[in-house]
C-alpha cells in the first residue's frame, strides 16, 4: 500500500530512469571509466542548468505552457553579463571595492541588470502571449528563434568597446565565445566548494546554494497570495475569474518572472561553464530546459519545484553518465549532441501526446 503510493508519487518513468542511471554507473565502473569524475561532472551540471530549468515553473503555472521562448530571458541575461563585463573590474576598483570581492560584485551586477532587462522583455512577451492563447508554444518557439536571430545582428553592432569582448580584427562586433576567466567565471562554483572525503567527488557548494536558494524563493512565491492566484489562473482560468482574479495580468506576471529567471539562469550557467556564448549558441537551450522539467514529472499544465530538482538531476545525469558509456559502445565523436537531440525531443513529443490526446476532436 505504502509502496505503491510512493511509486505513484514519484512516477514510473522517473524510477526507470533512476534505475537506468544506476545501471550506467555500474557499467561505467566496469568499463573502467572514472566514475567519480563523472559524478562530479553531474553535480556541477546539475547546478549549472538548474536555474534555467527552474524558469519553466512560473511559465507552466501561470498557464502559458512550456516556455520555449526562454531565449528571451537568456538574451536579457547575456546583455546583463556583457554590460557588467564591459564595465569591468576597473569600475569596482573605482568604487573602492575590495579586490577579492570584485568577481562577486561583477556577477551580482550582471544578475541585476539581466533580470531587469528580462523583466521588461517578459512583460511585452506576456502581453503577446495573451493575444495568442491556445497557440502559446508554437508562437513562443518562433519568437524565441527570432530574438536569437535578431540579437545576432545586435551583437555585431552594439557599441561594446572592451578589447577582450570584441573581435580583434575590425574593432567591432562581439566575439562568439567570451571567456569569463578575468571577470566572474566560477565565482559561485568555487564558493565553499569541497571534495567529499576520500573521494574525488567535488561539491560546488556555492552553485548549489544559489540554485536551491532560487528554488526556495520560487517555492515561497507560489505559496504567497499572488502566487496562488497565479497558479489558479493557470490551472483553471474560469475559477480564477470567478474569484475576481485578472487572469491576463497573472499570465503576464508569470511570463515576466519566468523570463527573468531565465536571465539569471543563463548567467549562472555561464559562470559555471566559464564562458559566455553568443550568437546561435542559446537557440536550442529552451528545448533542454523543457525536456528536463518534463522528465521530472511536470506536464504542460503543472510543474513544481520537485519536478525541477528531480528532472534536472535525471536529465543531466543521463547525459553526463550516459555519454562515455555510450561512447564505449558507439565510438562516435559528437554523440553528446545526438543523444541530447533524441532524448530531449523524444521526451517533449511524449508529453505533447499526453496532453493533446485528441480530446479537441
Amino acid at each position, binding site marked *: 500500500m505504502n509502496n505503491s503510493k510512493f511509486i505513484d508519487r514519484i512516477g514510473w518513468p522517473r524510477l526507470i530512469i533512476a534505475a537506468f542511471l544506476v545501471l550506467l554507473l555500474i557499467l561505467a565502473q566496469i568499463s573502467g571509466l572514472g566514475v567519480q569524475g563523472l559524478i562530479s561532472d553531474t553535480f556541477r551540471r546539475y547546478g549549472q542548468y538548474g536555474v534555467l530549468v527552474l524558469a519553466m515553473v512560473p511559465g507552466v503555472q501561470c498557464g502559458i505552457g512550456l516556455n520555449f521562448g526562454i531565449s528571451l530571458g537568456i538574451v536579457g541575461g547575456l546583455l546583463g553579463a556583457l554590460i557588467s563585463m564591459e564595465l569591468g573590474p576597473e569600475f569596482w576598483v573605482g568604487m573602492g571595492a575590495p579586490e577579492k570581492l570584485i568577481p562577486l560584485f561583477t556577477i551580482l551586477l550582471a544578475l541585476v541588470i539581466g533580470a531587469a532587462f528580462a523583466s521588461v522583455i517578459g512583460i511585452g512577451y506576456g502581453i503577446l502571449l495573451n493575444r495568442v492563447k491556445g497557440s502559446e508554444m*508554437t508562437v513562443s*518557439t518562433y519568437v524565441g528563434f527570432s530574438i536569437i536571430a535578431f540579437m545576432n545582428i545586435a551583437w555585431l553592432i552594439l557599441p561594446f568597446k572592451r578589447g577582450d569582448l570584441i573581435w580583434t580584427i575590425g574593432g567591432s562586433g562581439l566575439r562568439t565565445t567570451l571567456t569569463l576567466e578575468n571577470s566572474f567565471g566560477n565565482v559561485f562554483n568555487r564558493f565553499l566548494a569541497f571534495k567529499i572525503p576520500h573521494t574525488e567527488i567535488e561539491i560546488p557548494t556555492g552553485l548549489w546554494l544559489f540554485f536551491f536558494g532560487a528554488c526556495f524563493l520560487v517555492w515561497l512565491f507560489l505559496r504567497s497570495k499572488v502566487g496562488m492566484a497565479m497558479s489558479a489562473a493557470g490551472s483553471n482560468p474560469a475559477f480564477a475569474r470567478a474569484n475576481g482574479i485578472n487572469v491576463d495580468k497573472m499570465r503576464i506576471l508569470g511570463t515576466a518572472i519566468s523570463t527573468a529567471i531565465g536571465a539569471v539562469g543563463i548567467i549562472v550557467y555561464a559562470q559555471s561553464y566559464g564562458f559566455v556564448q553568443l550568437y546561435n549558441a542559446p537557440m536550442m537551450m529552451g528545448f533542454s530546459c523543457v525536456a528536463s522539467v518534463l522528465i521530472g514529472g511536470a506536464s504542460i499544465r503543472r510543474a513544481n519545484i520537485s519536478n525541477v530538482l528531480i528532472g534536472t538531476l535525471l536529465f543531466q545525469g543521463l547525459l553526463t553518465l550516459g555519454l562515455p558509456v555510450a561512447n564505449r559502445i558507439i*565510438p562516435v565523436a559528437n554523440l553528446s549532441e545526438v543523444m541530447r*537531440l533524441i532524448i530531449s525531443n523524444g521526451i517533449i*513529443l511524449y508529453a505533447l501526446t499526453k496532453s*493533446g490526446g*485528441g480530446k479537441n476532436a
Partner: protein
Amino acid sequence: MNNPVGKKNMRDMLFENKVTLLFVLLCIGAFFASKQTMGFLLGELFTRIGRNTFLVLSLLIPVLAGMGLNFGIVIGAMAAQIAVFSVSVWGITGFKGFALCVLLSTPLSILFGYGAGKLFNNMKGSEMIGGMVLGYCANGLYQLLFLFIFGGVIPINNSRLMISGGVGVKNTIDLKDTIKYALDELPLLHVVELALVLLALSAVIAWSAAKKKGDTAAGKRQVLRLVLSAVGFGLTFVPPIRSLLTTTRYTLLTAVEVVVAVVIAYTVGSVCYKKLLLHQEADLKKAGLRIALAAVAYALTYVDSIYRLLLSVKVPVVTYCMIGLLCFFNEALMKTRLGQNMRTVGQSLSVATASGINVDRTRIIAIIFSTVLAGYGQLISMQNIGTFQTYGAHETVGQFAIAALLVGGASVQKATNKQAVLGVVLFHTLFILAPSAGKNLFGNSMIGEYFRVFVAYGVIALSLAMHAWKGKAAQKIQLKPQGEKPGAGPSAEAEGAAQ
C-alpha cells in the same frame, strides 16, 4: 452580385496581404542597397525557384486538411537523403540513379509520414509544435544512422563516402558523378513521350469502360483523345519542336515564348472543346484577356534591355515542368473525393465525423502525401545543388519552406499554389540580396546574413501570432450574429438572392 464583395475594400485587401507587401518593399529596398545587377538576381533567383518551389508546394495539402504548417516535412527530406546515400553507395548514376532515388524514397517517406500522421493524431491542435519537435528528434536519429549505423552496423566499404575509420558518413558527398543535374538535364522529350503514352493508355481504358456502359458520347471523347495523343506524338518528330524538346535548359527567352505559345494554344483549345464538343458556354472575355496578356508578355521580349536580360538566364526545363505538374496535382487532388474529405476535416472535425468521414485516416493520408512530396522536393533540390551536406541539408528545409509559403500570403489555414510560388520568389530574392545589401549598408556582410535568418524566423513568428490573433477576433465576431437574429424572414431574403 459578386462585384460588391470583390471590390469590397482595397484597404482590407492591403491589410490582409501586409506580410507580402512588406516583403515586396523589403526586396525592392534590398535590390537597390545591394547594387547587384538584375541579371545576377534573375540568374540566382531562377536557380533557387527550381530548387525550392517543389518543397514549398509539398506543404499545401496538410494546410488544407487543417493540420497547419507541416514542420515535419523534414522527415521527408531525410528519407530522400537516405535514398541518395544508398544510390551513391551502389554507384548508380545519371537519371537511372535519380529514378532509383525516387523509387527508394517513396516507401521510406510513406512509412515516415504514416508515423508522423499517427503521432499528430495523438496531439490534435498541437500539430505544429509537434512537427517541429518531431523534426529535431528525427534529426537526432538521422545523425545516429549516418554517424554510427552506416559503417558501424551495416558495413560499407567506400572510402569516398565514409570517414577514414569506416564508421560514419563524411560531411559532404559530391554528387557530381551520380545524380547531379539528373533531372535538370533530362530532355523534355522523354517526359512528353511518357505523358502521351499515358494519355493514350487512359483513353483506351476509358473507351473500353464507356463501351461496356454503352455511353457513345463518352466513347467519342476518348477516341478524340487517342487521336490527339497520336498527333502529339507525330509532332515531336517535327524538327523545330524536336530540337526544342531535346534542349534541356532554355534561356528565359525561349521559356517565355514557349509559355506564351502554350497559354494561347490551351486557351483556344479549351474554348473550342467547350463550344464544339460539350456545347457549353465558354467565358470568351476571360479567354480573350488571357490571350491579350500572353501577347503583351511576348511583345515585351522585344524591348532591348529585357531581351538581353532574358537571354542571359537559363532554366532547367524538366524541373520546372515538375513544379507545374505538382501545382496541377494539388489542384486536381482537391477535386477528388479524398481532397474534399481533407477539406472537410480541415474545416470542422465534428462535421467530418458526423458525415462518416474517417478523420484520423484522412489526416494520416494528408501527412503521407506531404512527406512523400517533400522527399521528392529534396531530391530535386539535391540534384540541382550537386553536393550533399550529409548532416545539414535537411536542417533548415522545413523552416525555410514554411517561411517562403507564409511570405507569399498563406496562413496556417489557407494556402494556394500561387501563394507558394510568389512566396518562393520574394523570400529568395531577399535571401540572395541580403548579404550584399548588408555589406553595403553596414559594411558587414554577416549582418545581411543574420538579417535573412532573422527574416525567416520572424516571418514565421509573425504569421503564427497573427493567425492566433485573428482566430480570436473571428470568434468574437461569430458570437454576435446569433444574438441579433437577422430580422428579415427567409422568404424575403430568398427572393432578394434570386434576383
